[in-house]
């Protein structure tokens, strides 16, 4: 039907009106970004898929609640962050699954110690997800989602100063938690 020319806002209106293909088009446009975001938070591709799925199901079920205070993509980002947090929260009691594809990627591109890098990566996501919601959301939206302070203030419906404060405080909390969970060099087990 050639929905390429429609704006996200128009597609949302069409989705509300039951127009064909609007939902599919919105998903096509945003699925990669939402997946990338949720993968960063969860550190696991299956978890990220689950969170991305939840994000779009939320769009499907709650499109009526989208008030248009922000861009659709921004709104989805926010939903995605919370979905990723929920996924992690549900899995907190389970062992952290090691994503082998992620391990390979880390081995290839980033770290000399793939296992340690994977754990560290998962830790960052978990630490972020464990922050109080308003901090986690603000930090993730800005540092992972590239949203401006003004955008975040608009979608969270808070003052700009509050957003700055949340991001600053959230980052420091995150750093403290990462520091606490980082293995000390002396404790490294002999191979």
């Amino acid at each position: 039907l050639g929905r390429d020319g429609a704006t996200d806002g128009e597609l949302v209106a069409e989705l509300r009106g039951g127009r064909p293909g609007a939902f599919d088009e919105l998903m096509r446009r945003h699925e990669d970004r939402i997946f990338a975001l949720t993968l960063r938070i969860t550190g696991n591709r299956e978890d990220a898929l689950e969170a991305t799925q939840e994000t779009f199901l939320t769009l499907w079920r709650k499109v009526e609640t989208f008030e248009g205070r922000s861009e659709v993509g921004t709104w989805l980002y926010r939903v995605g962050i919370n979905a990723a947090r929920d996924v992690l929260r549900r899995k907190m009691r389970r062992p952290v699954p090691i994503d082998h594809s992620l391990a390979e990627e880390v081995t290839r591109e980033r770290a000399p110690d793939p296992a340690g890098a994977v754990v560290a990566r998962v830790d960052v996501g978990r630490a972020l997800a464990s922050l109080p919601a308003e901090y986690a959301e603000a930090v993730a939206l800005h540092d992972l989602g590239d949203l401006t302070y003004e955008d975040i203030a608009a979608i969270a419906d808070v003052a700009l100063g509050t957003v700055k404060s949340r991001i600053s405080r959230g980052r420091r909390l995150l750093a403290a938690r990462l520091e606490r969970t980082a293995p000390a060099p002396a404790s490294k087990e002999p191979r």
Partner: protein
Amino acid sequence: MTRQLDHETCSTLLKPYVEGALDEASAEAVARHLGGCDRCRSEHDAVGALLALEVGALTTDERARLRDRVRAASARPADVVPLPTRSRARALLGAAAAVLVLAAGGLYLGGATGGGGAGSAGGGALESPRQRFERARAPAETDTGGKSSLSRGPAPRFDRVARLGDDSLERLGSTAPPLTAFARAYRAADVPALKDRLLTDLERAAPARAGEQIRRCAGAVLDRYTALPAYAAVGRLGERRVLVTGFAWTDGGTRLRRFQMWAWPRGSCASPVAYEAGRIAP
């Protein structure tokens, strides 16, 4: 340029600083501030950890799985009426009969190929069977697809539509009307996107030969009208073995307002042997 930064300004510059996106003077100012500020250095470390979390995009397989899962979850909520299986066919056929009786409040009788007429839109007691039939079969008021589909494909013929006899209905049994639950579950559904999927589900759930007929008969209806295939079942209508296909129709939006039931002789989609339509209860 020697610029002194306060915590707040430094904080807002940390992300572009870590990304290397600041101009030289600003980067220098941030670096100088970080050198003497534990608080902002802590923030800097967090930003660095977050920005190191770069990972790949969806693979082709993941994208397909994601879309399938979203489609399935959005199209088939938990309370949707299950599609028929062999063991459920009789019960659902009974349910179909119940819908015909309960929702329509009367059944169409006899060959309805005439000119129609000005039936009342509400389908009240003054409306004749023929008027009701013509109103129900007219696609204009419910065809939301915007396609001029009336000229497409072989149209089912209506000249041998017959009444669903009371005896037959009794024999078929009765259960709760399935389309009420169906409408509730699919109220917000993207109708056209669901159509083919539902038809495929019906086809798969049915015994092999019935599945083939469902595809042909329901497909012929769906080629002409924008409706959702709601269910299908096989059974007997009097002495005749029939396939019943049920459709839900929208009001031009996403709400399902009407149902249609078509009973076909087994193995043939040339002409339905019985037919009924009515409003779906909200």
